[in-house]
């Protein structure tokens, strides 16, 4: 240890990089010609563009579903026990003052309740329908 101190200490990062580059199991670096590297670049650009389009289309689909649900909830909020909105009630000619407060949007308020919906377990814990089964199977040890 005493005579080691004279030499300058090599950075451990250099050692680690050299180890990983020269390891026999590391694949050798690819060297492409000009045209080959341009083709590689094109394939990469096309793949990334495709993935972006896929992601955006999924996002738009989700947004569309969300907006549709929100529109449905909004329509439900304005409907009373007979299925009429305030405007339709006035058109039909029924008196709406007494019914206005409690009946209008009753089902909406019931739908928006998030307590004790599913025998004590909130609806957010439900599993969404998927195309393929999960990677991890059923979790027998799950608790609330």
């Amino acid at each position, binding site marked *: 240890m005493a005579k080691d101190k004279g030499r300058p200490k090599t950075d451990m990062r250099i050692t680690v990089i050299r180890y990983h580059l020269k390891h026999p199991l590391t694949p050798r670096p690819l060297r492409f010609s000009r045209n080959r590297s341009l083709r590689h*670049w*094109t394939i990469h650009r096309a793949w990334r*563009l495709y993935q972006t389009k896929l992601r955006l289309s999924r996002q738009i689909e989700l947004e569309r579903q969300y907006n549709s649900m929100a529109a449905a909830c909004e329509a439900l909020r304005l409907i009373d026990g007979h299925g009429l909105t305030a405007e339709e009630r006035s058109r039909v000619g029924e008196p709406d003052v007494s019914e206005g407060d409690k009946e209008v949007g009753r089902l909406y308020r019931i739908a928006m309740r998030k307590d004790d919906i599913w025998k004590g377990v909130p609806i957010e814990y439900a599993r969404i329908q998927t195309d393929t089964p999960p990677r991890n199977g059923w979790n027998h040890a799950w608790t609330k």
Partner: protein
Amino acid sequence: MTLQRASRPVAHCLRQSSSTRHARTLATTPIDPSPPTPHYHHHPTPSPAPATPSQPARPPQRSSSLSRSNAPLGPEDAFQEARAFLQEDRREKLEAIGLQRVKIARLQDRVVVGEQNGEVERRKQREKDNRVRSMGRRLEEMKVMADINDPMVKKRFEDGQGDMTKPIYRHLANTQWHSYKRQILLQRLTQMNVMPDVLPALDPIVSTGLAFPTTSSTTPTRSRLKRVQHGDFVPSALSSQTPTLWIQPYNKGTRLCTVAVINPDVPNVEKDGFDHRCHFLAVNLPISPINTRVRLGELGSTSESKGDVLLPWLPAYAQKGAPYQRMSIIILEQPSPTLTPIVTTLLGAVAESRELDVTSASQDPRYNTRDGFNLRSFVDRYGLKAVGADLFRTKWDEGTAGVMQQAGIVGWDVEFRRKRVEPLPYQRKASERYR
């Protein structure tokens, strides 16, 4: 076996390209099945079917639908698929560009209605202008996005054959400049304190290049240009010649520029500080993305060069004993007259610049003298906008005296010496503790 396997993609490429023209390994337009023209081939082409028994049989030309053959797919097929996908995407983008153009035209046709010269009408006009401007910017972005995935465009740009009239090549050149050279320029300008000294703020939009002609004794007419990097020290013999400046803008259109070369380090012994001196001033230089070279020596003299020189080139010099002096070259864009056609400015092109009145500028006592030239005052007077800069430095060397004598500058034999500063009286403290 490994050699054969390694040569398989090459052989496959050759076989594919043999039935098409030889130069089209990277074709982005459909390869037509007409027989190849003779002058493209420099060597006898291999036949489409594999003739050598050592090479395993492979389907010669794979079509774009991959489901037909069961042979393993290679990167060439991925490339063809990628090409097809990108072509489809480009077609969609071109449609979107056409639609955007229609939208802009429709918006511009709409007339703003309000009270005559009322507040509402002005606000609505401003809102309409803002919308047209944003839509124009979006249109330029879409034009770049349509071509940015094209490998031929990338290849052409990397080979230096990009057409600067097209927005995609301008965009690629701008990105390349921003990634390294502009950062270097800003570093040099900031470290040399050009920003607060010469101008309060400077955001380079145009890239600059500087070169001085070296006059060789044998051929005085044909002189080679020596390139100077930003912030380099330039020997006085070199900087005595009038340089060539390259100004590359990245937005379309021709604009008129002013070039001013300012030396903010002229020593002034009486005030114990430094003065500014203007070594060169030229106005009304037409600069465009394809017309970038400005030979500062030939401005105004020959008929083809359009520009007016207010102060001709004075060689850069620093007297002996003085510290090195910074020579900053500032490129300023001349403003447009107030009543420009809005179409050009709002859709991304540069506006028509107004010509600077040379006679009034040359008679103005503030701007026709070199010593004490105030660039900030010049910029404010004519409403100029700083778009680019370059920098080089001079110090005293053996040739400076000769250069100053040749240029007829007073003070070629002046030598600066540091003023001796009398030290403060030192009071020896009593005990050993203060030694």
